[in-house]
């Protein structure tokens, strides 16, 4: 066979690979060609006000969609965990999908799918269920999560809640501006940029993408200083603004499943512990705004204990803490000795006299707080 004819034949698979690669890469390329969407201009203040009125006026429009949550916090020793843990704990590292169906304030369903298992939170009227397919357990939650209160662990917050929180933090110490318009889930969106003014903060800025049409937050990104990719991102991958089918909000515990009453399984322990600490006056915050630092008593022995009695998520937390502790670097100074855990967004200091000091700040701020006692 002539060389040329042979070359032509091999051109076909090369073309096929090019077509597939093109199809895979088409999204970003098309977005780049189209450029940023153009929305009527709004200043940061107008945008905040419009969003404010939208939220004040009541309910969000009914919608359903897929939220992708990506955390690359750069916690040393945490990456080993991503393969094993399931459920809310796993959201601390890697990329995860949450599906949401929103009918009204009293009709919400969140689903966290993982391979051959699923966690579901279903709110329908005065009934709230937490379904764990791996454990075959349905939990009737006594206190339905209030929309105004962060009811889920920080990692599973919806864009709405995340934006609400970011806006609440907007204060005299924050530079608020409107960035270039962005495209999120195929929709044109305003981008509100919140940058901390304090030099000691590890956060470069927080970007909130707000849908140009419905003014609903579609995405929240947290950028660490010196990083091109967001350290934490939660946003819609796809969204449709239409009323989800009512059967999404119906839940009857399946035959053979364990049914129990309780609070959100991933939360009750942490919450109770936090409340306890706060009541005892043990939990303190030092500083304010972006540079506030949390100080609480903490002994490594507690962790080991938790690991022994823990099962399910408890065990995963124990294993995680173990890995993170091993990666901590020993430090010392005028304030004493301890171990420092540095991540892109958060620094944590474990002092040898049994305190945990943490915040989204440079280690120097932690040392200062440690010296204050």
């Amino acid at each position, binding site marked *: 066979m002539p060389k040329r004819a042979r070359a032509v*034949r091999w051109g076909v*698979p090369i073309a096929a690979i090019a077509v597939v690669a093109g199809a895979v890469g088409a999204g970003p390329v098309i977005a780049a060609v189209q450029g940023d969407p153009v929305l009527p201009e709004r200043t940061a203040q107008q945008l905040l006000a419009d969003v404010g009125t939208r939220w004040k006026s009541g309910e969000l429009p009914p919608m359903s969609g897929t939220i992708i949550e990506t955390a690359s916090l750069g916690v040393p020793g945490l990456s080993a965990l991503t393969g094993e843990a399931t459920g809310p704990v796993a959201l601390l590292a890697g990329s995860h999908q949450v599906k949401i169906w929103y009918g009204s304030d009293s009709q919400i369903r969140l689903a966290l799918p993982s*391979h051959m298992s699923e966690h579901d939170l279903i709110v329908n009227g005065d009934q709230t*269920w937490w379904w764990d397919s791996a454990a075959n357990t349905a939990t009737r939650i006594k206190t339905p999560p209030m929309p105004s209160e962060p009811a889920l662990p920080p990692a599973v917050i919806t864009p709405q809640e995340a934006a609400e929180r970011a806006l609440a933090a907007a204060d005299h110490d924050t530079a608020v501006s409107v960035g270039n318009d962005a495209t999120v889930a195929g929709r044109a969106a305003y981008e509100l940029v919140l940058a901390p003014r304090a030099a000691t903060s590890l956060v470069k800025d927080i970007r909130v993408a707000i849908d140009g049409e419905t003014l609903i937050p579609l995405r929240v990104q947290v950028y660490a200083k010196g990083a091109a990719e967001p350290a934490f991102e939660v946003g819609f991958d796809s969204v449709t603004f239409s009323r989800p089918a009512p059967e999404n909000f119906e839940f009857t515990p399946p035959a053979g499943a364990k049914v129990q009453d309780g609070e959100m399984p991933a939360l009750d322990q942490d919450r109770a512990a936090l409340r306890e600490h706060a009541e005892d006056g043990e939990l303190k915050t030092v500083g304010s705004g972006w540079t506030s630092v949390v100080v609480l008593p903490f002994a490594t022995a507690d962790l080991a204990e938790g690991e022994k009695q823990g099962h399910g998520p408890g065990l995963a937390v124990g294993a995680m803490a173990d890995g993170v502790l091993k990666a901590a670097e020993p430090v010392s100074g005028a304030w004493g000795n301890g171990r420092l855990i540095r991540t892109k967004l958060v620094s944590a200091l474990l002092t040898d006299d049994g305190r945990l000091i943490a915040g989204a700040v440079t280690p120097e701020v932690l040392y200062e707080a440690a010296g204050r006692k």
Partner: protein
Amino acid sequence: MSKVGPLGEGLSVSAGVQADSSAVSAGPRARSLSGDGPESPRGALAGVRAGVRLLRSEIGLTFRRPRNLALLGVLAVVPLVIGVAIRAAGDGADSFVGQVAGNGLVLTFAAFFVMLPLVLPLAVGVVAGDSIAGEAGLGTLRYLLTAPAGRTRLLALKYANVVVFAVAACALVAVSALVTGLVLFPVGPVTLLSGSTIPLAEGLLRIGLVALYAAAGMAALGALALAISTLTETSIGAIATTLVLVVVAQVLQAIPQLAVIEPYLLTSWWAGFDGALRDPVATDQMGQGLLVFAAYIVVCGSIAWARFTSRDITA
């Protein structure tokens, strides 16, 4: 014997040789290869008929080979073993597999869960990896090429045969698991991963969906194995390479630091069949999986075509 020219698609071989079916079926594996040449008046229709005949004879050979029958036997036995093991161990209804004790239909999903990573790819990899290289190794490929089918059509027929085997393998797993489940366990409405319960009939429908998705995944693996099979003349080499790739891909998948490449691996999409067990069905996830399978089939198929139509067949 002289080489059959690489571009021999029915042109370089005289019509006289083609018509003489006894001459071309001299190989150890008799097939019916007679048919009219593409240039004859009845060309197109006869070509289709010849293709169908060739495919039928291929499928017949595939399903009569003792080795393939043994593979299918293993596929049928594994769900039975899982079912008996769960029955013997008693009910531990804590996990999804544990729910089998309460509902026999769930055994089908459990069987695919257990068999999709390795057992099913093993069976499909053997048949697909053997398809071209095996003929080349036995020296029968030459004879096949004297048929008027042409290389492109021959390759298409070989792949069609692989797809039929993949579908049959997945259907066999589903049926075997279904029968085992019906015999050993009570059967009733199915609880999905999302916690909702669907009636029995819809449960059967979902089983069909899972089997079809698995078959599509196996067809993609078949295309990969077929491409490898055109690169070598030793079938065991093609089979081993395919299975090593399957295992390596799954090892890579297990390394969290390599999560970036996971969406590009064929194996990571096989697990997507669990989308059929959610409420509503995770069509986005399964649709994406099917697209990945299609991409693998197009790329590997074109590589197989380029290689098979341009190489010199010496054996």
